[in-house]
């Protein structure tokens, strides 16, 4: 058990100073996700631009260092990206997390997210790292289907 591979400095930094925290207007979709095992929760909003850019992701999260830091890193990675690109990043992160520590993280794509490579070795914590990502995917898809309905 290598604690420091789990609690990388990057993670602890994001935990102490989460980016993009708080709930903001405007948004097209808001979701509430829980980790049923431990009760960690996140309320998350997605605001898409007309051209499909992720304009804003705002959130109110209650949870452990891993889940908090993950939300912070996620927002850094998806805000400003095209939705499709953001969902690709989601896919890459998911793969890293489900890789049982065998997947080599891609810094180009994941930036600070590579710090979570160590989390993949702690199965009980994988859900923590994924909570906000899953919420993002859910909200983003809701938001984009709303856009389509309007169009």
């Amino acid at each position, binding site marked *: *058990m290598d604690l420091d591979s789990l609690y990388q400095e990057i993670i602890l930094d994001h935990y102490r100073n989460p980016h993009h925290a708080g709930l903001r207007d405007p948004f097209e979709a808001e979701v509430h996700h829980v980790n*049923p095992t431990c009760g960690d929760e996140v309320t998350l909003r997605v605001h898409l631009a007309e051209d499909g850019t992720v304009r804003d992701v705002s959130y109110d999260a209650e949870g452990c260092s891993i889940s908090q830091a993950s939300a912070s890193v996620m927002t850094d990675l998806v805000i400003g990206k095209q939705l499709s690109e953001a969902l690709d990043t989601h896919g890459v992160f998911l793969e890293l997390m489900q890789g049982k520590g065998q997947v080599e993280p891609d810094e180009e794509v994941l930036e600070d997210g590579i710090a979570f490579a160590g989390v993949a070795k702690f*199965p*009980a914590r994988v859900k923590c790292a994924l909570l906000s990502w899953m919420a993002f995917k859910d909200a983003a898809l809701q938001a984009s289907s709303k856009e389509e309905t309007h169009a």
Partner: protein
Amino acid sequence: MDGLLTDLDVIRKDFPILERRVANDLPLVYLDSANTSQKPQVVIDAMVDQLENHNANIARAMHTLGAESTYAFEAARDKVAAFLNAPSRDEVIFTKNASEALNLVARTFPLGPGDRVVITEMEHHSNIVPWQLATERAGAELRWFGLTDEGELDLSNIDELLTPGTKVVALTWVSNMLGTINPVAEIARRAHEVGAVVVLDASQAAPQLPVDVQAVEADFVAFTGHKVTGPTGIGVLWGRTELLDSLPPFLGGGEMIATVSMEKSTWAPIPHKFEAGTPPIVEAIGLGAAIDYISHVGLDRIHAHEQAITGYLLDGLASVSGVRVLGPLDPTRRGGAVAFELAGVHPHDVAQLLDSRGIAVRAGHHCAKPAHKRFGVQSSTRASSYLYTTPAEIDALVEGLEFTKNYFKVG
């Protein structure tokens, strides 16, 4: 003998109980595998290893033992999913036995007044009673396929039975009394034409046939751990995702929730929605080891072995005057459970006499009273084989039946 497992001696060594001596030091001849199968050492060892080295509650536990136990438990789910060729591991729900799995569907599947459920006259009580209770609750109608004199399903009135009002067709893949292998894929196709879902009781199929839920286009499939060389206390319900997602919860409690407040709760996604409370952890792990074991031997090889032994058994029984077999006489069209009557001797007495010679068979109605009634008998004797059964054990049975006739001075 064609089809017999070539490594039968080695396989028998895997089962410690086969060393047991009973009835004044005679070797055990276990011919009651359709009732419950024996357990190979690897299954017992997997359970002991879990209990001695890894035991913890799952999902909820963050610590090392908890992670190990969760991993082993969920690995068992993967194994079951692969065993059934399930499209998704989340479709595999652990229950305590096949009966609970069937009740889960019968309790939660939406039925209303005028809806119809169709079962068959050869079902195990566990696939009759839940549907009687469900249709009674809903004001729905229960109908069933009858049986031919040969012990096969009588499908002559299938058009009459399967109507647009038919919501569920629930039937056994292999009969535990008659041995009959039913044409489940064909029935599923017909059921789907009228929009009914198909619930297959694979309790007797899973031990001895390759069970592929996609190939037969089933909607729900149930089986039980203790008949596939696994432990008691564990069963499986497989169901299609859309269906499982649409059903309301069955048992409420820990692990099946998303959130709980005093006023209201919401449910976790499948499979957890249907797994309230601490699941049978060591039992699931034992089942996983059992599935590894029988898959390693090979379901095709087991099936061939069962057919060879069953053919030999049917020949043996035919040689005993006064024996009447209930069910198909063609070994290629049936499973390895053979129920029979012995003229002039009640099945209890047959079983008792055989037991005095170390031979274990089952006597009674085998939880299939309607099928017995159909054949005008109240009870029968049943001999059932499995991958460890030898031709010599069948010989012992046949000799035992002659001894029984002698003892009771019949024939």
